[in-house]
């Protein structure tokens, strides 16, 4: 048999795609663990169906819009249903491997949303939006960057999708979370947020570990080639950034609240990973530590900002981790890129501001970040609004209190375990006078 490098490319791309696929399990476990037991079946179903519907819709139309011939630079126009791939040619088979890799990426963008709108969004409405993002929003923005469109032309660098995948998902999630509104009981009469803890820290951690694992495929697989040593530096920077994200988030939360906050730390891992995704192939290990560490810090800050300033309810912190850390990571390429790394990975000999480059690249990165928000947020807002008007996005208060598992799926997630008394208090509105917690002990204490 004659040597053909293409086989190693296909093997690598497929294995990476499989790892990225497993991130669906990671998201499902993280989101389920971070929300309440009474909504477990619902969040699970949303995760199963977004990858299912997303796979079908991306095949039908998304792939074509994203990677079809793109004369305008704004949208692809052919190759729908991968029709251009001929299984009898080598090129066709490579296209198939590229297609499966892109499919699982599209599903990732979709699934980010499920967490942010969880515990109060109707199932049907969620599925409709999944069609929109995997069929249109994500592919169209993607075509600008990865489909050879105008942002690619400009010089915008987003190697594996800090912006293309994660921010797209997060800004869509932000629009969704605003329109569906906060969960009942999330904000008190005083407008202050109440904590609504998730039901399983072990599932959350499992999810994060699986995501970290899958992210190696996400980043290193984005070479779509095994015939390059750059995948080694990508793996190294990915891992260091994730580790630093955990340390950054834990450190900041310890500084703020004097405790080792578990869910913040787990979110910090995600922040580190999202942060490095854009520049993973352009920066060195030291820079990766800084990018990831700041990514973790950004997540903590953004969770607080979103909850207390924006007053948006994002039960799992997805907008903070994927949107804010994604934006940070995309900018960071303009700061930390080093020609030696970019060269080995074919991302170009770009140097960031801190490594002797100019501000130019930083400018391109800013354009990309802004373009993403400017396109995705308003479009998604309108789509969610229409879905809301047509069929209603928000589950009724009563359904939220009983839990979506019963109201939407007529089956409890954990029928064999007794619910705690605390579960009955978690996230119910104060119906008596005043905020629900303080007075209950004050009089008792006062009269003693």
């Amino acid at each position, binding site marked *: 048999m004659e040597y053909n490098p293409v086989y190693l490319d296909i093997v690598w791309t497929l294995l990476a795609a499989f790892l990225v696929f497993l991130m669906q399990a990671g998201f499902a476990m993280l989101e389920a663990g971070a929300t309440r037991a009474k909504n477990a079946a619902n969040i699970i179903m949303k995760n199963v169906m977004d990858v299912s519907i997303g796979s079908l819709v991306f095949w039908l139309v998304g792939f074509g819009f994203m990677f079809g011939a793109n004369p305008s630079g704004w949208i692809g126009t052919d190759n729908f249903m991968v029709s251009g791939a001929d299984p009898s040619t080598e090129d066709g088979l490579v296209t198939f491997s590229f297609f499966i890799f892109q499919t699982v990426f599209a599903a990732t963008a979709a699934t980010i949303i499920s967490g942010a709108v969880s515990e109060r969004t109707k199932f049907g409405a969620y599925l409709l939006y999944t069609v929109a993002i995997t069929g249109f929003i994500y592919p169209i923005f993607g075509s600008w960057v990865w489909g050879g469109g105008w942002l690619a032309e400009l010089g915008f660098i987003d190697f594996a999708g800090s912006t293309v995948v994660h921010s797209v998902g997060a800004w869509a999630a932000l629009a969704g979370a605003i329109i569906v509104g906060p969960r009942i009981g999330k904000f008190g009469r005083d407008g202050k947020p109440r904590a609504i803890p998730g039901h399983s820290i072990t599932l959350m951690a499992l999810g994060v570990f699986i995501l970290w694992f899958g992210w190696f495929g996400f980043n290193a697989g984005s070479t779509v080639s095994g015939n390059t040593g750059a995948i080694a530096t990508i793996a190294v920077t990915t891992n260091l950034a994730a580790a630093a994200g955990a340390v950054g988030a834990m450190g900041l939360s310890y500084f703020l609240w004097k405790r080792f906050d578990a869910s913040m730390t787990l979110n910090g891992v995600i922040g580190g990973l999202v942060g490095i995704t854009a520049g993973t192939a352009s920066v060195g290990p030291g820079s990766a530590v800084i990018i990831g560490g700041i990514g973790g810090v950004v997540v903590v800050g953004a969770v607080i900002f979103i909850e207390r300033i924006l007053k948006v309810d994002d039960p799992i912190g997805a907008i903070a981790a994927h949107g804010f850390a994604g934006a940070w990571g995309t900018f960071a390429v303009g700061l930390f890129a080093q020609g030696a790394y970019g060269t080995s990975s074919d991302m170009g000999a770009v140097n960031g501001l801190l490594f002797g480059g100019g501000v130019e690249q930083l400018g391109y990165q800013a354009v990309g970040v802004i373009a993403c928000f400017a396109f995705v947020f308003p479009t998604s807002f309108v789509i969610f609004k229409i879905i809301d008007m047509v069929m209603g996005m928000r589950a009724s208060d009563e359904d939220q*209190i*009983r839990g979506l598992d*019963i109201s939407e*799926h*007529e*089956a*409890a997630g954990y029928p064999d375990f*007794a*619910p*705690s*008394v605390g579960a*009955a*208090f978690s996230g*119910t*509105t*104060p*119906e*008596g*006078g*005043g905020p*629900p917690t303080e*007075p*209950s002990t004050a*009089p*008792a204490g006062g*009269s*003693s």
Partner: protein
Amino acid sequence: MKQITAVIRPQRMAPVRDALLRAGVHGMTLSEVTGFGRQGGSVEEYQGVQYKVDYVSKMRIEVVVTDSIVEEAVAAIKAAAQSGAIGDGKIWVTPVEEVHRIRTGERDDDALT
């Protein structure tokens, strides 16, 4: 002294607690229970087989009070727990002969302040 036992809807727990505190109660003990009654329970579905869960999740409140506030406490629970739909629950009152506060050894009404 009397013990008031109330079985209510879980989602009414927060307002009932607040109402009891306003009625002068200083403590109470809660447990998750399962109720049978007129309320039908939900019909759930598992792999295509419907099954009737004819028990429903309820919250049980146990509160020991001094005789003078029994009426007020019962009224407070009733008001805060009532939705008007089947399944609102029951309240019953039973006699209590002694009460002790473990921490101090105080007895009876003193143990309840």
